[in-house]
């Protein structure tokens, strides 16, 4: 075999491997191509920015969720925590009259604190994360209603800025990109990130290797809470007000995005880039079905089937690579 043929063959293999490892990305591209053909409204600058804005909240929640799922946990509370963070921030500004920056920081810290509480219940209280965060889902939503008395509250200007545009560029997209880079950096480059993979892959082996498993879990959930807080800022910033019923059910979108992105609920596997693609798949499907005038009732059916399909393909692929 000549070297040229060999090289070609290797390239061929690499492409195959790339496609196999990035099934969600391929799916996203196919989806975009189909929508491009189906409707002239899809590939317009306005619609693209629209998709970016819509993806920002889900993606930021899902980035935080990626930490948790990599560490073999689940966080059901992110939607409620986003709403609570937004409400605490807005109340600090409007009701307590605090500085807008303080209100922004207060919102983010609220999220991190909620996450840390779930993390401690999981790590030290030995509750399954499903239960700990299910409790937090209820507590955070309840507190949101208590604080707001069920009414919307105006956000600080600094928070509203996150929902506005700088020139033609919407801030939520900037936040999405920055949050994604930070999350990827944490997961791939830092010791704590690598510890998450070890803890998720085999908790006992990680512990016996001297990895402080309990601390790692608290940090993981605190990060998930922090990202939920940021998502809450984005949501409320766009509306200039924190809504008590904001982000209901968003945790399921976040989990779906992470799983479509190739993470395993068994832990130890997952990438931020995959999660971003997963979030975009969800948003593009919704956007496309809207453009095609499909009813929102049917949209839910389609989304459900896509989740099952994406994970089903992934399971088959994994089976083939192992055996």
């Amino acid at each position, binding site marked *: 075999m000549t070297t040229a043929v060999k090289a070609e063959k290797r390239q061929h293999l690499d492409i195959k491997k790339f496609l196999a490892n990035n099934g969600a990305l391929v799916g996203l591209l196919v989806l975009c191509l189909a929508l491009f053909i189906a409707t002239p409204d899809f590939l317009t600058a306005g619609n693209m920015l629209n998709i970016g804005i819509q993806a920002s909240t889900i993606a930021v929640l899902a980035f935080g969720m990626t930490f948790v799922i990599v560490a073999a946990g689940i966080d059901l509370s992110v939607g409620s925590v986003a709403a609570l963070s937004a409400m605490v921030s807005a109340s600090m500004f409007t009701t307590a009259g605090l500085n807008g920056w303080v209100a922004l920081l207060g919102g983010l810290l609220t999220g991190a604190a909620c996450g840390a509480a779930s993390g401690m219940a999981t790590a030290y209280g030995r509750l399954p994360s499903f239960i700990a965060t299910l409790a937090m889902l209820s507590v955070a939503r309840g507190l949101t209603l208590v604080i707001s008395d069920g009414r919307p509250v105006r956000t600080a200007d600094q928070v509203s800025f996150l929902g506005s545009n700088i020139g033609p560029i919407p801030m939520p997209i900037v936040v999405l990109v920055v949050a994604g880079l930070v999350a990827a950096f944490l997961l791939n*480059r*830092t*010791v*704590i*990130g*690598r*510890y998450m*993979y*070890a803890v998720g*892959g*085999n908790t*006992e*082996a*990680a*512990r*016996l*290797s*001297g*990895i*402080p498993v309990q601390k790692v879990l608290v940090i993981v959930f605190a990060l998930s809470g922090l990202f939920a807080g940021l998502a809450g800022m984005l949501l409320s910033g766009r509306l200039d007000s924190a809504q008590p019923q904001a982000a209901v059910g968003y945790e399921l979108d976040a989990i779906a995005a992470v799983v479509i992105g190739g993470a395993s609920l068994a832990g*130890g*596997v997952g990438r931020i880039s995959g999660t971003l693609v997963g979030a975009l798949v969800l948003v593009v499907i919704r956007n496309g079905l809207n453009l095609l005038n499909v009813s929102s009732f049917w949209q839910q059916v389609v989304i459900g089937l896509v989740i099952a399909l994406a994970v089903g393909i992934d399971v088959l692929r994994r089976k083939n690579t*192992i055996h």
Partner: protein
Amino acid sequence: MNGQPILTLDKISKSFGPVQVIDEVTVSVHPGKVQVLLGENGAGKSTLIKMMAGVYQPDGGRILLDGEPVKFRDTNASEAAGIATIHQELNLVPTMSVAENIMMGRFLKRFGMVDRPALRKQARAALDLIGLDIDLDQPVGELGIARQQLVEIAKALSLDARMLILDEPTAALTRREIAALFSVVHDLRERGVGMVFISHHLDEIAEVGDSVSVLRDGKFVAEVPADTAEPELVRLMVGRDISQQFPRRREYTGPSEPLLHVEGLSIKGLVNNMSFTVHAGEVVGLAGLVGAGRTEVVRAVAGVDPYDSGSVIIRGRRIPRHNIGAGIKAGLGHVPEDRKVQGLVLDASVNENIGYATLASTAKGGLVDFKGQRDKAQDVAGKLRIRMSGLDQTVRSLSGGNQQKAVFGRWIAAGAKVLLLDEPTRGVDVGAKVEIYELINSVTAAGGAVLMVSSELPEVLGMSDRILVMSGGHLSGELAAEDATQDKVMTLAVRDVVRDLEDKS
């Protein structure tokens, strides 16, 4: 042997890809006889019994059932022929009752509902077959391993099994439980049930077996009577003398400092006032029966589990209780009992698995030193001769021996001076075993100290410089390597068991 065998594997062969695992092996199982399969790990025993059970189909040779050639397409076919396997991992549902487990899959129904009285009656009849008197309604998970095993045997017999395959049934049992199991085996022999018995404990063979088929590297070596002397069995099994099998060398010439000192270690109900010291350049074997408290001592010293009183001093530094990180910092490395469950992240790479203990200590500002970690892992993997396609290969796809070397590698990379080894060669093939022994030699030659728990007495005798024997949770004696024998170790190991059990009750 007289009479028609129940089952004969006739010149049977099996390969997986290019690897010939079984090469023209012939084994027969006769009614009322116990056929022992003997061989090192990797000799092909498991593959052989899986072909008897229909899990694998042979590539060559014939399977004869009552003299007639048969093919077992799957495990159902083998079961229908009356062949049952009692695996090490039992096939019971822990939360369901004894009766339900025995009758699993054939619940009797009346008006569409489970007929409980009939179910209980049949389950009781099955237990009576082996004279086991236990509560039918107790969840199986509440029984000890030994009784669960007996429940599984009862279940097999109630399915009209006439041939039982017992795959290392004694591995997790205490001496007394083993005696109970053997009396059941004797009863079954009287009833004409044929049995295949696998065990790594040579002393059990004469007690329970009739005939021994010895395998080595997938080939049939010999068939000998079960009362053959142990050294002869070892010679047949290993194919060389035992002195070569355990290449202990003492090359350390430095000062004999105490590196690990344990004083008065006690864990309520498990370990009682253990004190000992391991010096630089020394391998200390920790022997005893399963349940004597050896693993508990190792785990407490490593900081994995808390202890109630006592102290652990590593290289002069007192290590806080239940603190794994502090021990590692002081130079401790722990190779745990079960590498797959406790030692490795199976789906992570060799590189990552070797690096876990040093990720934080080599990091700068919380960032991983990827290049340094990788260079170190490459170096260690090379030294340990881990056979892999590359550092990025997942550990799951390595052989048992190479997986174990990866766990060792983590501590070599961390520069551990005191190694706690819990069953370091369990499930490792002969070649890799010797490599692990050589690794132990190189650790002690460099002035390290090793504490080794092993249930394989020849290994303890062959590799240790001193042997501590535990019995019933405390140190029952210490032997120097040169005057230790299997008999002396066993005498110490069983000395206090009876007395301690009486004290507790």
